């Protein structure tokens, strides 16, 4: 209890944020800077000046040794939107670049191609708190786009910088950043498979299931408070619904297999494949495991549901035509249509947050690749190639990135790329084999 109160107090006192200049944020924002649905998006060149000590004046004469620039750069780079300029390119005389407009020679940055500039300053308040000022400038217009001052404990530095980075992304793209989101995945070591959660950038992974059995295919609820997964902990595949903060939840253990859960957006409801009738079909269930209705009714394999953002349609995998293909069901009319025709093995559908595309795994020749396709079934785009097996795509909540698993370097690991297939990179390395990542659909508080 004490802990809880302390936590709440922290939340209130730590983030005493003074937005001292609110240029453009609410007034007009047409996101002319970054349109994330543009596949030919050029990276915006951005310069970030090392944070300065502003105890004496706002110009900031002294460069801080332990400043958060690398942390900020790491986050911005992760998005794939920026080309972060090398410090050496513009910092011939960086001591003369202050943190406020009047102390910045913008031409120094425009000549090296920087279109955006971030400055930061730090000082201690009278009562010993940490005060950080962060600003985003348009170098060509010589204009401040965002200016914020934050006050908190010195241990809050990373959180403050993360919040500012989120503001920068929101200002430039009109979408919430991924910096407060998390990724759930499974990891297998010597035959035992467990569920883990890590930050958006692969850091701070922690184990969620703690048994010596097989736990797999985790799925986030849309409010990111619950995960559902399948576990063999009691001998057969059952569904576990679990609140990630509190120790509560339920087990769905009908006769036969209870697998492949996927939450309905905005509801405490999920779809899953159950085989108690003797044949595997997808059912709509409440979060406590009561069957609401049967969603598929064909003999064969029906698995891997994924809902459209409005919850009105469901993509899923079915073998009704003889090979595994992706189908879309209209939940209200009951109509089902086949989405994928190319190839003999298309699985793992993941509906994009914008609702216009579906990412999936396709077997192409002898490899498995990640593809995206319009919901009309057109414009199939292969995002990975010649890199062994790439599976289980899942969109970041802003739709700009896709997380997936790949065994391109032998072991299966978690990778991230932009939703157009660029900037493919490994997210982290850990022992064992990591598979089935799913990006949270919103901010995760834990």
């Amino acid at each position, binding site marked *: 209890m004490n802990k809880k109160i302390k936590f709440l107090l922290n939340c209130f006192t730590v983030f005493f944020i003074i937005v001292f200049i609110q240029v453009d944020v609410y007034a007009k924002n047409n996101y002319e800077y970054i349109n994330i649905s543009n596949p030919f998006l050029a990276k915006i060149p951005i310069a970030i000046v090392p944070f300065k000590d502003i105890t004496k004046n706002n110009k900031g004469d002294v460069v801080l040794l332990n400043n958060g620039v690398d942390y900020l750069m790491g986050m911005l780079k992760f998005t794939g939107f920026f080309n972060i300029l090398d410090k050496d390119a513009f910092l011939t005389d960086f001591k003369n670049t202050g943190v406020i407009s009047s102390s910045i020679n913008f031409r120094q940055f425009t000549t090296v191609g920087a279109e955006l500039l971030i400055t930061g300053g730090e000082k201690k308040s009278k009562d010993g708190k940490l005060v950080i000022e962060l600003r985003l400038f348009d170098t060509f217009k010589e204009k401040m786009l965002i200016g914020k001052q934050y006050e908190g404990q010195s241990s809050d530095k990373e959180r403050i910088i993360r919040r500012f980075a989120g503001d920068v992304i929101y200002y430039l793209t009109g979408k919430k950043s991924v910096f407060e989101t998390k990724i759930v995945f499974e990891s297998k070591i010597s035959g035992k498979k467990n569920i883990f959660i890590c930050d958006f950038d692969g850091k701070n992974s922690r184990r969620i299931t703690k048994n010596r059995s*097989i736990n797999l295919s985790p799925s986030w609820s849309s409010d990111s408070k619950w995960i559902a997964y399948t576990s063999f902990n009691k001998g057969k595949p059952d569904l576990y619904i679990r609140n990630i903060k509190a120790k509560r939840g339920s087990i769905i253990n009908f006769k036969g*297999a209870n697998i492949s859960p996927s939450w309905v957006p905005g509801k405490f409801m999920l779809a899953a494949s159950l085989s108690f009738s003797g044949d595997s079909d997808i059912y709509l269930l409440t979060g406590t495991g009561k069957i609401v209705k049967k969603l598929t009714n064909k003999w064969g394999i029906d698995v891997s549901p994924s809902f459209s953002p409005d919850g009105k349609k469901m993509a899923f*995998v079915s073998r009704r035509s003889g090979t595994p293909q992706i189908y879309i069901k209209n939940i209200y009319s009951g109509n089902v249509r086949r989405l994928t025709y190319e190839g003999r093995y298309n699985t793992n559908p993941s509906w994009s947050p914008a609702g216009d595309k579906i990412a999936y795994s396709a077997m192409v020749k002898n490899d*498995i690749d990640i593809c995206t396709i319009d919901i009309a079934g057109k414009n199939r785009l292969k995002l990975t190639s010649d890199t062994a097996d790439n599976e289980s795509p899942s969109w970041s909540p802003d739709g700009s990135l896709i997380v997936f698993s790949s065994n391109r370097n032998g072991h299966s690991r978690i990778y991230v790329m932009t939703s157009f297939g660029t900037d493919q990179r490994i997210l982290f390395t850990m022992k064992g084999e990591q598979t089935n990542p799913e990006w949270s659909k919103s901010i995760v508080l834990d």
Partner: protein
Amino acid sequence: MQEKLFIKSLLCAMVCGFMIFAVSCGPKVVKSTAPEEVVENVESQDIYQDDAAEEEEMNRQRALEEQLLEEQRIAEEAVKKEALEKFITENVYFDYNEFFLTEDAQERLKDKWMWLKDNMDISVIIEGHCDSRGTTEYNLGLGEKRAESVRTFLIDLGIDGAMLTKISYGEEKPVDPGNTPSAWAKNRRVHFTIE
């Protein structure tokens, strides 16, 4: 395989032979002593001696018979054990991304059926497995279908469905963790376990 069968039948024939020998020997002894029982008891000593000999012979025969029976029992146990082992270790294999039963699979399942109908008191778990190709969730579905194909086949041959439970492990429990066609072929299987 055929050699094994030959040895087994030879063993059976030998056991049977011994038994016939033992049974046919038994009464002969009794017959030969029977007339002497009616003779006066003058030579009681001899009679007693004969009785003792007879008793001894009977005991010897009984021991022999018990030994033979024991041997037979052990031989039968061995056959049973071997059959059980074969039932458990011999998997039924599937084609890539398929759950229909190939001719070979059906032949193997007939052996399973033979064993099952002699062991109706046992509960069997039919495990469906897949190779590592393809996706986790779909493979869980595919493993389930493989187990279902096998279960249905056995029920159609007359096995009580209550004896047969199915479970899918998808691609989670490979027998060969390799990433080669031969490893994949080994992993696309239905495996039997006894509950």
